[in-house]
């Protein structure tokens, strides 16, 4: 899977990541109100996705690896969702 193109591709990916980093820092200079965090997380997730797919070669891996790579994200979502549901619905009824 390594060929003459591989290194060039890595370089392009790196450029893309640098570009996204600039965007992240730039976006933080503006106040989007409640969208601040979602925007930052969106960009971070694109960066993370790019690293995982290209640097970590997730795009060449089989379905089982994909399941193991994504299932913890779902569990993390559960942990946050359930505990937040508790903490933010404690208002006295």
């Amino acid at each position: 899977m390594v060929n003459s193109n591989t290194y060039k591709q890595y370089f392009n990916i790196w450029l893309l990541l640098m570009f996204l980093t600039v965007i992240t820092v730039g976006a933080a200079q503006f106040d989007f109100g409640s969208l601040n965090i979602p925007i930052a997380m969106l960009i971070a997730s694109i960066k993370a996705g790019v690293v995982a797919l290209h640097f970590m070669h997730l795009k060449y891996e089989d379905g089982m690896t994909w399941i193991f790579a994504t299932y913890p994200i779902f569990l993390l979502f559960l942990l946050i969702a359930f505990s937040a549901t508790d903490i933010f619905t404690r208002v006295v009824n």
Partner: protein
Amino acid sequence: MSQSHSFDKSYLEDGTGFKSWFFTHDHKRLGVMYLWAIGIFFILAAIASFLIRFEHLTPGQTIVDAQTYNVLFTLHGAVMVFLFIVPGVAASFGNFLIPLMIGARDVIFPKLNLYSFWVYCAGAIIFLIALAAPADTGWTFYTPYSIDTGANVILVTFGVFVLGFSSILTGINFIVSIHKLRAPGLTWDRLPLFCWAAYATSLLQVLATPVVGITLLLLIGERYFGLGFFDPAKGGDPVLFQHFFWFYSHPAVYIMILPAMGIISEVIPVFSRKPIFGYKAIAYSSLAIALISFLVWGHHMFVSGQSKLINIIFSVITFAVAVPTAIKVFNWLWTMYKGSIELSAAMLYSLAFIFLFTIGGLTGLFLGALAADVHLHDTYFVVAHMHYVMIGGTVFGLFSAIHFWYPKMWGKMFDEFKAKIAFVLIFIGFNIVFFPQFILGTLGMPRRYFNYSPEFATLHQISTYGTWILGIGFIIMLYALLRPISNKAEANPYKSASLEWAMPSPPPTLNFEKIPTLTASTYDYGTKLEQEA
């Protein structure tokens, strides 16, 4: 590492002395060492529980003072949970059996397997050191008590953190082994149910343990660096600690019970001479439990100050998990229908498992129902419920496994008669200890109480007397197992159709000289009926 490739020497004879064991890569030797280790910790924690029960012989002080009592129940809980029952069946019999059952020469990462054992030993040593300055928080380490107490919490929690690594590494090893090393013909729908259970257990170990790891790390940080997540005095939320803790510890309940369910699913078909009833239901429900068990942790927290909405959500999901468990019980039961049942010691433990686990499961319904849980939470009812599942379930499953695979593991035969006497005592003793505790609980006796009002004395005394019967049962069982009556075991004394019985007892170091090819299910018992075909 000297690895003899001879297939005519058994794994027990392949090298002697400390080094040949402590540096072995052989999954069977590691399994055996885990079995010894968990056995020793079981005895240690059991002694603590006998002292606890003895203390309750009379209200007020009987033998120890309040602080010692708190240390004792913490010791009992923490050692039982983290050193005995979580590694428990999975690490011991999982290691011993999985490669044999899937037709492999070892687990996929044999060196890593040895490292996990070492990490387990390291964690255990930390625990033992921590006994010198023991913690008094209970095994749940609830904040802010665990932040405030003057007792030594850091060492114990660090021990749990280290043990978590062992759990994770073993889990990864099993999952990848089952994925990559199944013998030709051993498709997923032929995989022995013990392997299914171990697979689901491993998934839980891998995915749940890190969360308790970070939680305990943060708890250490709270004590050491003054972090404030779980301390109400600093704006933190102690209930959040409970969320994090039970996010691990509820799946951990299934880490404890699933392997035992796997064992039952192996033992009952052999001694009923029938294929397991509802193979797919049992296999898939193991996997389903591995997923759903992450969704119900809040039922440990109905009166913790959780919001009403989340209580209701958790209660609904809890009842949803109850149904697959009920289905499993009926599947085991119906495996015996029209069978040819032989009441060996292993089978007796399995049958007792079904009955006691049923009681444990049904009493779970009380605790899942919101209104009833408000009354029963943190009373002896919970203590009894938990022990019916953990002893009646896991420990009876473990005992069943110890008796069933005894010939395979040691190449010897034990005295069935003595083992059955031990079983009767253990079964009766167990029920005398824990059944009265249900009533203590409904009457309102809170758990973790050093002192109690005299109205509870009779039930407490009955419970304490039960531990003595239980103790005698354990001793007889140990005697029966440590004094084999024959030094020669057949390859397959129970005529099992499973792969591990197809090789000599005990098996050679590398198990299979030639990797077998499977052509039929491992539950190939009985004659096919016309209408079934």
